[in-house]
């Protein structure tokens, strides 16, 4: 079976096309075809959430979606959350509140957290923990992640802009 599928998808607002083998996973389309390695791969079986991106605004695990299923849909990745050289208020909050240690889970956690804040701009600690059930972090114990998301909610509610990296 050598045939390919052609895909046109909007990634971070930009239309992209590719010809891929049908079994290509969305995470490999992003990382291998388009060289966007901000989206990480942990388990590749849907358990860890390291590969989380947004599809039409909802958080999804990109190792659990075929690239072909992204055809015609909107994908948002960590690369698109803030202009180059700047940090989104969510990223700034993770930095300041020590919401990461090794950083492996962080792109996925941020994409899940941003999706949460669109649905619920003022989440409680319990609501943040519920929304992040699909993102495993081996380092932080989640405590500072929750604090960072709360802090980001406050900053985004008051309209903070992306800040440049010092």
């Amino acid at each position: 079976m050598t045939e390919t599928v052609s895909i046109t998808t909007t990634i971070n607002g930009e239309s992209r096309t590719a010809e891929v083998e049908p079994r290509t996973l969305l995470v490999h389309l992003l990382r291998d075809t388009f060289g966007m390695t901000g989206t990480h791969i942990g388990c590749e079986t849907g358990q860890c959430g390291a590969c989380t991106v947004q599809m039409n605004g909802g958080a999804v695990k990109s190792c659990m979606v075929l690239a072909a299923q992204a055809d015609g849909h909107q994908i948002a990745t960590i690369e698109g959350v803030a202009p180059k050289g700047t940090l989104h208020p969510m990223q700034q909050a993770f930095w300041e509140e020590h919401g990461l240690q090794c950083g492996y889970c962080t792109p996925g956690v941020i994409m899940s957290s941003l999706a949460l804040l669109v649905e619920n701009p003022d989440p409680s600690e319990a609501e943040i923990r519920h929304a992040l059930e699909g993102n495993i972090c081996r380092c932080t114990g989640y405590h500072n992640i929750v604090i960072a998301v709360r802090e980001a909610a406050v900053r985004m509610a008051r309209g903070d802009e992306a800040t440049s990296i010092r």
Partner: protein
Amino acid sequence: MHPYPFTYHRPTSIDDALTMLGEFGDSGKLLAGGHSLLPVMKLRLAQPEHLIDISGLAGLSGVRLDGDVVGIGALTTHHQLATDAILETSAGLLPEIARVVGDQQVRNRGTFGGALAHADPAADYPAGVLALNAEIVARGPNGERTIPIDDFFVDFLTSALEPDEILTSIRIPALAANTGYRYEKLQNPASGYAIVGVAAVVTLTADGKISAARVGVTGAGDMAYRPQAVENALVGSTPNEDSVKAAAESAVDGIELLSDIHAPADYRARVTKNLVRRAVLKAVERAGV
């Protein structure tokens, strides 16, 4: 981690998908949210040559109230179920279950129809659709048929759907007045699936007697089931802690319990009885007479 190679098809209508199913026979498989099928394909436990992606088909998604019956399209996602206003008022048990399926990401992709068709013995919805007395609507080469939920789960990972049929919708009678419901789940902390899950729907008379009770159990055996001895003991009784506890004692009668590293059979038996007791008591409380 890649599945074996396959050919990808995107039908443009249900009829188109049915034609493909007929043409490919055993080598074709429907793909909806992919959250059960892609994992088994990656683990190479399944290797369909043709994937028929129905996830983009129009008209198979969403919730409609038609008189006293709620119709739910097969492609409705767990997230849609969790947040749907019609369901919240007419069959609130389903959103209660949907909210504890997997995680945010899984709920955004996985579909109600896919979950039922997959008939995983540890899946959450089977308990709920049994308790709600749902009907499954399927289309095949000879047209449409309706399958009562009591006939739907037939074995481990096996439903009453034929290989050439597509589950199109699920019909649920809207809950009657003075009816309460509850889903109780002991969650596997790693996978999120149910070790045991129990759904109860209870209707009370004006003087507080149980006039109808349906209970669904998932995770305990090879497939979801209704513990009918429990239901029979409840109907006609005036429920209290002791009577419900006594009724729940027969929750695993005649069931060959699963036994694995997560829960040996005797533990599953105790958990099932306890969750039946809790689910029924909460349903009674919510029936609010």
